[in-house]
């Protein structure tokens, strides 16, 4: 070092300051070291690295994201457009009239609203306690090795298609209802006058039962998500105060997740309102309102499924499409409220897609 400095003492720049400079090249050098331009950098700089490519790609992606809005608006628009005949003829009274006479062109949706509300309410009555029980079992009571298989089984229930539920209900549940469960119910609960009338197996009660089986997995898996979102500190605090396990669940977990559980129940309700195939096969398809749970009825979705292909007149078709419009709006509102409730509890963590 000292020798170097001595021999070059005449030079203005001492060696330590002689920093190797890099020439600013357009095309960077490839790692081979032979001075040829880097193939990768070459490729990247020549193809689509400008803002035009970025912006056009982002625009295409945005277009596809806006397609979701387009789908909703399309469905709404086309349903309103094609039900204008019925809207013009009946107006709002369509939903309060009880007639349904395709021959004379007299339509009213009240029997179907009754059928939908009755089956959904009964299904919720049967499904919610069971779903809560399953959720409590899986999150708090179940031993760890059993947890994965049993939760997988409950999710398999959600994967079974509606028509397979209907098939099973027609050939297994309906005879069961007619021969075993029906007489039993009449014998012990006949005093409630809810079980009067002939029992053919098909009717409100059978449809409610199969609907309950179908909405159970939705409610239970969402409730499980919500219960696991409750922080462990809540559970430990209640246990530290001397609570039993059930008291811990009741005070520490369920009380904190009340809103979310209501949201999960509403999502189940949304599914029950729109369920078509299984209900169509076991509800008896008769537009009437009756007090008996054994009586055949019809729901908004099942009347569309059953009578759409046989709608001969334009007014008939328009009335059915108006029923579809009502179903669409009601399920959108119920689902929106439910999703808001679930989101409020799980705080923006992505909701399970069902």
């Amino acid at each position, binding site marked *: 070092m000292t020798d170097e400095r001595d021999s070059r003492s005449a030079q203005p720049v001492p060696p330590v300051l002689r920093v190797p400079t890099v020439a600013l090249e357009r095309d960077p050098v490839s790692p081979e070291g032979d001075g040829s331009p880097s193939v990768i950098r070459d490729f990247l700089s020549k193809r*689509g690295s*400008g803002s035009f490519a*970025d912006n056009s790609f*982002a625009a295409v*992606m945005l277009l*596809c*994201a*806006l*397609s*979701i809005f387009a*789908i*909703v608006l*399309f*469905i709404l628009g*086309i*349903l309103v457009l094609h039900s204008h005949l019925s809207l013009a003829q009946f107006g709002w009274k369509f939903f309060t009239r009880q007639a349904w006479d395709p021959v004379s062109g007299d339509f009213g949706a009240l029997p179907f609203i009754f059928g939908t509300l009755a089956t959904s309410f009964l299904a919720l009555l049967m499904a919610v306690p*069971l779903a*809560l*029980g*399953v959720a409590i*079992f899986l999150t708090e009571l179940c031993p760890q090795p059993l947890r994965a298989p049993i939760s997988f089984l*409950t999710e*398999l*229930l959600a*994967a*079974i*298609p*509606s*028509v*397979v539920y*209907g*098939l*099973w209900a*027609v050939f*297994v549940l309906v005879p069961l209802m007619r021969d075993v469960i029906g007489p039993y119910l009449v014998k012990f609960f006949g005093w409630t006058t809810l079980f009067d009338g002939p029992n053919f197996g098909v009717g409100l009660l059978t449809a409610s039962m199969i609907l309950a*089986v179908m909405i159970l997995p939705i409610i239970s898996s969402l409730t499980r998500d919500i219960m696991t979102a409750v922080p462990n500190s809540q559970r430990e605090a209640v246990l530290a105060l001397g609570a*039993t396990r*059930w*008291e811990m669940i009741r005070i520490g977990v369920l009380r904190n997740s009340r809103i979310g559980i209501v949201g999960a129940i509403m999502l189940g309700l*949304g*599914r029950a309102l*729109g*369920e*078509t*195939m299984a209900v169509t*096969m076991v509800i008896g398809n008769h537009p009437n309102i009756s007090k008996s749970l054994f009586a055949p009825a019809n729901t908004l*979705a099942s009347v*569309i*499924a059953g009578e*759409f292909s046989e709608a001969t007149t334009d007014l008939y078709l328009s009335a*059915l*499409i108006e029923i*579809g419009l009502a*179903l*669409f709006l009601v*399920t959108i509102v119920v*689902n929106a409220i439910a999703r808001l409730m679930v989101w409020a509890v799980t705080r923006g963590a*992505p*909701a399970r*897609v069902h």
Partner: protein
Amino acid sequence: MRINNARRTATNYFISGLSILATVIVILPLAAILFYLIYKGANSLNLAFFTKVPAPVGESGGGMANSIVGSGIILFVASLIGIPIGIAAGVYLAEFGRGKPLATAVRFTADVLNGVPSIVMGIAVFSLMVQGRHFSALAGGVVLALMMIPTITRTTEEMLATVPHAIREAALGLGVPKWRTAISVSLRTASPGIITGCMLAFARVAGETAPLLFTAFGNQFWSFKLNEPIAALPLQIYVYATGPYDDWHRLAWAGALVLIVMIMVSVTLVRIFANRGVLKGGS
């Protein structure tokens, strides 16, 4: 105090027993359905089932081959339309729209759209594509695509959100344009999860009957054209189950067994591969 303790302990055991009972009651219908499907459907499953079209009423034999192939065609068309749009929308939500109110609105609308009854979508597409023309496989594919899009969008967005930012930033720092980062880096990293999301949506629409009632309509014979009515497996199961002939009921059970096996296989595959796609140790 001691009485109170005893009562609380008794309630505790009672509720525990109730929840175990609830779980058993829930598993019961699943076991019953699977048992009946195998019991009633398995002996009708022979080679004729998978190769022949339905026989005229009164003749034995015949199968549901045209329904299986028809379902395949409709699902192929639906995937062709639905998967690219769904993945693109998911890419927008995860890569370009983070934090923007539009992205929140799209996400919420996709969730709400998932809950719309399938029959409503069926009659909407009927009014658009079938009324004035005729039933077609294309209309069936379109309605199933409309049902797949929100599901695939949400799962793609969730999977892309698991890709660590460090990987994206490394690519951007090397001069890779944003669109190429989204495709070659983010999508490729999250691809196992995205594929399982697509399979989940596929399994869900494979079993849908209601929207196909008025779009694809069903067909007794072979049909490979997109412009004609086409048979579909769930549709044929519905027609046979509600028909009056015992032969039809047998075929309905067998068809339901085939459908369930296909769906269960996809759901199980999804379960197995879902965990492989998650990047562990991301920042």
